[in-house]
């Protein structure tokens, strides 16, 4: 019966909301600090951020050397 389905769904929703309400949360200041710290630590190894020198760019078409 659809009413029983509706009640079953409502019970599941309440159960799920209980789980979500009960989690531990950290302060936004800590969350933000950790994101900033991660970005900073890995910035110099981020090729799209700092750029790739032509000589080290595997995607750059290298002009063939001509041996004279």
């Amino acid at each position, binding site marked *: 019966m659809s*009413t029983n389905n*509706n*009640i079953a769904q*409502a*019970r599941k*929703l*309440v159960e*799920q*909301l*209980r*789980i*979500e*309400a009960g*989690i531990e*949360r*950290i*302060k*936004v*200041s*800590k*969350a*933000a*600090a*950790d*994101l*900033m710290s*991660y*970005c900073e*630590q*890995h*910035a110099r*190894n*981020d*090729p*799209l*951020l700092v750029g*790739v020198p032509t000589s080290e*760019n*595997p*995607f*750059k*078409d290298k002009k063939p050397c001509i041996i004279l």
Partner: protein
Amino acid sequence: MGEMEALRKEADNLKDQITEARKVVQDTTLQEAVAGTALVGRVQLKTRKTLRGHLAKIYAMHWGTDTKFCVSASQDGKLIVWDTLTTNKVNAIPLKSSWVMTCAYAPSGNMVACGGLDNMCSIYNLKGKDGNVKVMRELAAHTGYLSCCRFLSDSEIITSSGDCTCVLWDIETGTEKTIFAGHLGDCMSLAVSPDFKMFISGACDFTAKLWDIREATCRQTFSGHESDINAIGFFPNGNAVITGSDDATCKLYDLRADQELVTYQDSGIMCGVTSLAPSLSGRLLLAGYDDFNVNIWDMLKAERVGVLAGHDNRVSCIGVSSDGMACCTGSWDSFLKIWN
């Protein structure tokens, strides 16, 4: 009062509790926290390669792990595995159903998967004995289209579907191990956490959900978008989630603070986000839009710092290689482009 009424009241109470609990830890905003950080300089990437070969719209692409190979799926009915350095096609796999919406590369490099309006996830073995690529398994049980799939290993894959569920499959037996139900709209996209313990899903109910794979539970639900979420990804350290929506914005949600930290939006952008990928450090967010462009955002400062303009139709998919060296975009114009 009837049980239905009581349950509704309790649900509302719990929702209020969650809203309160999130406010309690909101001692600052990301914008305030990064006030002293300089904006990254203008990011200008160039197209280094154009991968030509598909004959119709490209709907999905996925980089292999620790490799310059990637796989793409097009509604021309083909999966193509590309060597992006040489632009050579390593494999061109004809599909039974041309209505493909997603593809994935196994971390091992041994398999690829795809699916779409056939409601199935087909797994292909790239390393078969006779060199031919064949269908290894057809994972069938979803009652709606397959919108996304991601391998956990050669033996497990997670799928998201228009039937509003996500499923963890045992590839060997072809059976469903776990069904993740809870979304109230089509699931459009999923991403696996860097430690492979969790995954996130974005759906047409405007929410993103964080799931614990082994416990088979939904841990957290994130709201705020005003339309379908089409794209989702993890920040590289696994502590935050980025979503892209038809409401023309992307959002960053922190998992441990359990709330949205910032929205990436611009009054000049009025079309939906189709795809997204963070750069290796997480500082840049590359997002593909319906207006044929990719916008590059400074993820901390929430400002646009670059644009990739080069496609002649919608950018449907985007990915950054695992070493962060290049970004690949796929488009309805039938081409893939490699940028750095």
